[in-house]
């Protein structure tokens, strides 16, 4: 029963990736290509400036002599910063994907084919949501991992040229499997954090007669604007609770992408001798802490309500 459910869910999620290969396969690959190109250019430029490679190799030897904790910190920071570009573009891709997810097949009438399959509307909506919440983070993580590996391999060659052990000086402080695990966990928690926004997009997609993405933006914008003017007119002040601000806070506040334990950093930042620790960068605690906030679960509840609405409209949707 459960195995059957997973089999069906898996093929439905694969369908989504088949339908949008540009969003989920080519976009992360293209970001990887872009970063690889930048790295290549930087290396060529470096080789031009530093003809004999003496500065470069000296620099690498100096790197080998720095404090191991410092090495870890810098490596970890570098590894995470590579993820930023991927994750921000992924967020945009997912927004557009979800806005079209329950709309495109109504427009091109293929909904009549999909509804001729013995798949419930709940399962259909769930498969599209899970594509955004799980499949997209996994595929973009693959792009990040590819970039990481490329950089670490290049760095290893430079280390060898400088007579330094690449394993202890490059791979060990970078610790890619740990970084990937933290990134994945962070992405999943972030997906849950953004559930109300994802669900809102799907909700709009499920009934919009056209341009679901525009409707999804305009409705909260108008509500926010109205709130703004209303409180200005009635109490001559700015609103205490503004929908648009709430949404932006939601987007800005999550755990991604570097999952820095800000609380810890802030606390220690007051002392004069403070230096950040790598552990604060790969902090599982800061990720999991989000899970026990009321804000998180209020958002999830709103998301579930909107999803129920999306299923309701999906059940009634046909080709016109």
């Amino acid at each position: 029963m459960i195995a059957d459910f997973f089999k069906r869910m898996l093929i439905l999620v694969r369908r989504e990736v088949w339908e949008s290969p540009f969003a989920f396969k080519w976009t992360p690959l293209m970001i990887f290509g872009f970063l690889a190109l930048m790295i290549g250019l930087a290396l060529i430029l470096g080789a031009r400036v530093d003809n004999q490679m003496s500065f470069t190799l000296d620099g690498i030897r100096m790197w080998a002599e720095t404090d191991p904790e410092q090495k870890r910190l810098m490596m970890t920071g570098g590894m995470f910063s590579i993820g930023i570009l991927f994750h921000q573009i992924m967020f945009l891709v997912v927004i557009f994907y979800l806005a079209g997810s329950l709309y495109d097949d109504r427009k091109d009438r293929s909904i009549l084919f999909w509804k001729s399959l013995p798949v419930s509307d709940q399962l259909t909506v769930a498969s599209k949501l899970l594509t955004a919440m799980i499949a997209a983070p996994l595929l973009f993580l693959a792009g990040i991992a590819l970039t990481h590996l490329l950089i670490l391999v290049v760095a290893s060659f430079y280390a060898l040229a400088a007579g330094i052990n690449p394993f202890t000086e490059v791979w060990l402080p970078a610790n890619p499997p740990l970084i990937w695990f933290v990134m994945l966990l962070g992405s999943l928690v972030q997906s849950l954090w953004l559930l109300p926004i994802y669900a809102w997009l799907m909700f709009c997609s499920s009934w919009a007669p056209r341009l679901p993405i525009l409707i999804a933006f305009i409705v909260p914008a108008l509500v926010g604007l109205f709130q703004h003017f209303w409180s200005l007119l009635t109490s001559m002040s700015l609103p205490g609770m503004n929908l648009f601000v709430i949404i932006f806070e939601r987007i800005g506040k999550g755990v991604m992408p570097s999952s820095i334990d800000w609380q810890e950093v802030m606390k220690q930042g007051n002392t004069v001798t403070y230096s950040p620790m790598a552990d604060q960068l790969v902090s599982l605690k800061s990720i999991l802490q989000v899970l026990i906030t009321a804000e998180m679960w209020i958002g999830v509840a709103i998301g579930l309500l909107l999803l129920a609405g999306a299923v309701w409209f999906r059940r009634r949707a046909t080709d016109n």
Partner: protein
Amino acid sequence: MSAIVHARGLTRKYGSTVALDRVDLEIPAGRIVGLIGPNGAGKTTALKAMLGLTSFQGTLEVLGLNPSKNRDQLMQDVCFIADVAVLPRWARVWQIIELTEKLHPRFSRETCLHYLARTKIHQNAKVRTLSKGMVVQFHLALVMAIDAKLLVLDEPTLGLDILFRKQFYTSLLNEYFDEQRTILITTHQVEEVEHILTDLIFIQDGRFVLDSSMDEVHERYTEVMVGPDRVEQARSLSPIHERALFGRHIFLFDGGDPARLAELGEIHKPGIADLFVALMGEPEQAREQAA
């Protein structure tokens, strides 16, 4: 054996427009039913109600299930081809086969590939690159590979050339249909289906104008070709329709004594198209639909 489709007082309104007006329907197993009517008569609405694609009032049971509540369960035993354009255009042929296999418990990949092998469709082709005829061939191959109890076809051959249309109905009849299965067809191309139908339903303005088996239709309606000298005599027997063809008059009678009709001239079984024109009022519009 309970009915495949059972409807009582089936009604569907869009605002003030009544698309289906208290329709009663009973389709037993092993029939091929033609649902014929002009555009906007309610054909597609009736099919959509049976497929759980629209809400309705009244009672409707398909294979004992309420389609609007149990669509996903119902679709295990019901197949459906809307008109030609509904296979997802972005998908490749093998992807749709893979999807159907994983999602449909009664689908046989082997059978599907067997039917596909007769066509020029490549598994790696995208649906958008296939011609209209090939898309229908592909959809038919998918559907014939599903062991379903009810097959619903809504204008399945719209816009196809005559070779594809012939082939479509030939495969359907010879390789798919048997006593366990029921097929429900709507189409404007009535001449092509009239020889395969076992039952005929005419629908107009959301109501059934005719609902009977083809045998009953042939028993009840008679077409007589009358020479100019007997026209007045034929008219006195109150025909339901009259048309002129090459100087001869063709009368359509509902009931009537076969012996007396035979005296008037040559007797035929009426074609569905002619019957349609006779029963559906406004001749011009109806002829256009039936053509």
